[in-house]
């Protein structure tokens, strides 16, 4: 991790808000800007990023460790290289051990950004990323729903309390005008990155990164990145 400049954990506490979609798209957007980018799927029991990226038939190379394969210009690591089509029922302690193992053996070499796709819940993976990756920054994803923000609010308060860097909050799947999330986020002194729309074209673009970037969701996320991430 010495050569890795920025580590961004895309997190939420809540599931299904678009963490994996945003983490994957963000990684591709940064790679297209010319940055050296890694993407690490840490949602071991329900990994999704390989589906979004259409990353099939990849296998990491072994060379004094594991060299993540490249896909769409990003170095990409996921447990699906090893679990394939199988469910991986892991207790928290196993998740913790697997995480430590993969961090120890994966050779990212130099990266401008390592994007981490976090699992839902505020549990082992989140606590371990905080514990082991001192320079981690959180990009927190929510939707406009009260149900999502119920957990996101708790996560934001916890991260502030611990003094952890939150680079911003994205409000994803926006459907109608409202200021509630923006106000809640800014009221906590946290940067509100902005809104990405609910976009029915996203589902058809799953597995097709070029198409994904041309969706409204993709182009607005690109604007948010240009504006907020320097």
């Amino acid at each position, binding site marked *: 991790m010495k050569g890795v400049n920025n580590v961004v954990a895309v997190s939420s506490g809540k599931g299904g808000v678009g963490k994996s979609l945003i983490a994957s798209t963000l990684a591709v957007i940064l790679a297209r800007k010319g940055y050296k980018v890694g993407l690490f799927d840490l949602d071991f029991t329900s990994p999704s990023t390989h589906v979004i990226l259409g990353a099939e038939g990849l296998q990491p190379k072994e060379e004094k*460790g*594991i060299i993540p394969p490249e896909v769409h210009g990003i170095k990409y690591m996921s*447990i699906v290289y090893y679990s394939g089509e199988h469910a991986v029922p892991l207790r928290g302690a196993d998740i913790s*051990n697997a995480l430590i193992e993969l961090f120890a*053996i994966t050779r990212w070499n130099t990266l401008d950004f390592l994007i981490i796709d976090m699992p839902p819940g505020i549990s082992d993976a989140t606590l371990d990323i905080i514990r082991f990756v001192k320079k981690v920054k959180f990009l927190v994803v929510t939707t406009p729903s009260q149900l999502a923000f119920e957990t996101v609010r708790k996560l934001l308060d916890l991260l502030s309390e611990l003094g952890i860097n939150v680079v911003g909050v994205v409000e994803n799947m926006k459907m109608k005008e409202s200021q509630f999330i923006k106000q809640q986020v800014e009221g906590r002194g946290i940067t509100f990155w902005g809104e990405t729309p609910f976009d029915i074209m996203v589902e058809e673009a799953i597995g097709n990164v070029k198409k994904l970037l041309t969706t409204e969701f993709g182009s607005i996320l690109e604007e948010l990145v240009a504006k907020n991430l320097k």
Partner: protein
Amino acid sequence: MHEWALAEAVISTVSQITEKEQLKEVLEVKIKVGELQQIELDILEFALSQLKTPKLKNVKFNIQTAKAELKCRYCGHKWIFRKEKMNEEIAEAIHFVPEIAHAYVKCPKCGSPDFEILEGRGIWLESIKGAK
């Protein structure tokens, strides 16, 4: 061949302890290697010898293997993991991430994937002998 990365992790831990205990020199490092992960011992040994730091120049690496004992949380049955029963691809996956065993290995008595790895998961430091 990711035995190099594992060796690096061992050397880095040894260095931390050396510093914390203010050792001038490390004389012996006992390492246990669990059979679940099927680490290649000769590559590991070679990697360790290549990665020696100055304080480790006279060190003896004492590497022992430990059987991988699994215990089912569902029915309580205990058994020893045998790699011979695995196909090569699965064995390879477990080699890199021992927890992947939960995707492929089931309790031989009740079929549950909910087992504990009692011993013999990966690689761990047993002890260090040094001079102050």
